[in-house]
């Protein structure tokens, strides 16, 4: 479904990687590994279309993702290094507006259920500025529980700043997504095991 063709990335005059190619079938997890500064985040930003590759292209279902425009981004959930959480909004509002950008308008109960799944029950109406770093990350991750219709998930360090319970929840959500035929690309420094899914490892040398 997701295919990369001879991708190259240059940052500040330095070539981070070149001739990078892979093809991911439905139900596949791509784990991008590598030391700090190897270009993991850059690769993810290229895959989701925020950044342009120095060479090569990204294909979705055989077509150039860049040319597909919104037809591609509609299929996509990207959680970046920055959580895109508004400090002045409550978790419920943050989740609602994030999903609206992705073209989803779930009912209020569904939002509360998703937040509860990430352990934020009772915090739905607290402005995000009073939440801890890990809790803000959980608010961003609550999108996963309501984005099963989006076939492609691109997650940049989704497990950073999370406690053990939240990590288990995220792994369960990603596994369910893979079992349903979705594709996930993620970076993480944690050693975690994804059962049942076919996992592809990509190591960027730096």
């Amino acid at each position, binding site marked *: 479904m997701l295919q990369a063709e001879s991708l190259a990335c240059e940052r500040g005059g330095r070539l981070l990687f070149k001739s990078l190619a892979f093809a991911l079938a439905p139900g596949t997890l791509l784990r991008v590994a590598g030391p700090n500064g190897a270009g993991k985040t850059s690769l993810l930003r290229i895959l989701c279309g925020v950044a*342009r590759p120095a060479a090569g292209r990204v294909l979705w279902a055989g077509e150039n993702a860049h040319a597909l425009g*919104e037809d591609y*981004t509609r299929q996509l959930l*990207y959680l970046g290094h*920055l959580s895109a959480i*508004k400090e002045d909004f409550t978790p419920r509002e943050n989740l609602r507006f994030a999903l609206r950008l992705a*073209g989803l308008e779930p009912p209020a109960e569904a939002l509360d259920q998703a937040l509860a799944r990430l352990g934020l029950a009772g915090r739905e109406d607290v402005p995000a500025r009073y939440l801890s770093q890990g809790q803000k990350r959980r608010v961003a991750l609550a999108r996963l529980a309501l984005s099963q219709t989006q076939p492609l998930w691109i997650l940049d360090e989704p497990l950073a700043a999370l406690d053990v319970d939240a990590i288990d929840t995220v792994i369960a959500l990603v596994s369910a997504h893979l079992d349903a035929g979705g594709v996930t690309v993620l970076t993480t420094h944690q050693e975690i095991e994804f059962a049942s899914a076919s996992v592809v490892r990509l190591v960027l040398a730096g």
Partner: protein
Amino acid sequence: MLASIVGIIERDLRLAFRRKGDVAQVLVFFVIVASLFPLGTGAEPNQLRAMGPGVVWVAALLAALLSLNRLFAADYADGSLEQMLIAAQPLAATVTGKTIAHWLTTGLPLTLLAPLLGVQYDLPAPALGALVASLALGTPVLSLIGAVGAALTLGARGAAVLLALLVLPLYVPVLVFGAGAVGAALAGLPHGAHLSLLGAFLAFSTVFAPWATCAALRIALD
């Protein structure tokens, strides 16, 4: 498309409502700048009447400029802008919505406040009418052009000063015809032509400014 624009407007207005201080700052700045001139030049009614249109317009221009960094900087810093770039809706819809929300929280209140400041300069009723009409047509142009500048200076060092240097020259035509409309009404001359030209600026920038803003945002996030 329309639903996406309205969705963004709702989001940004809600955010502005949570940060009422930011909106109030701009309005207070407008009132203070426009009130400083009579204190500096003396309260001679004819002189005040002559300089009133220009002063109120320049103060509105500076107040609009002051509010521009609010447009994208916060969304850029917390990653929201990234999400908008790869949203299911076109970036142009997002940009249009944000620009409209910006106008609703700066240009519109400036326009509504302006007659009060006009009275301070002893402007007669026809000139006050022209002031409101010219600001109503001109302030959306300020928001639209300002959005291009705000997008171009995203992430740059000394962005605030750079933004002023970039945007203020582009504001000149709006200032000339905006203040000109009030001046003409003050002199008892017809000012329809000035307003028509402001309307033309508005139509032109409504078409081209969001497009330029989108291009600038894509470059800023690359």
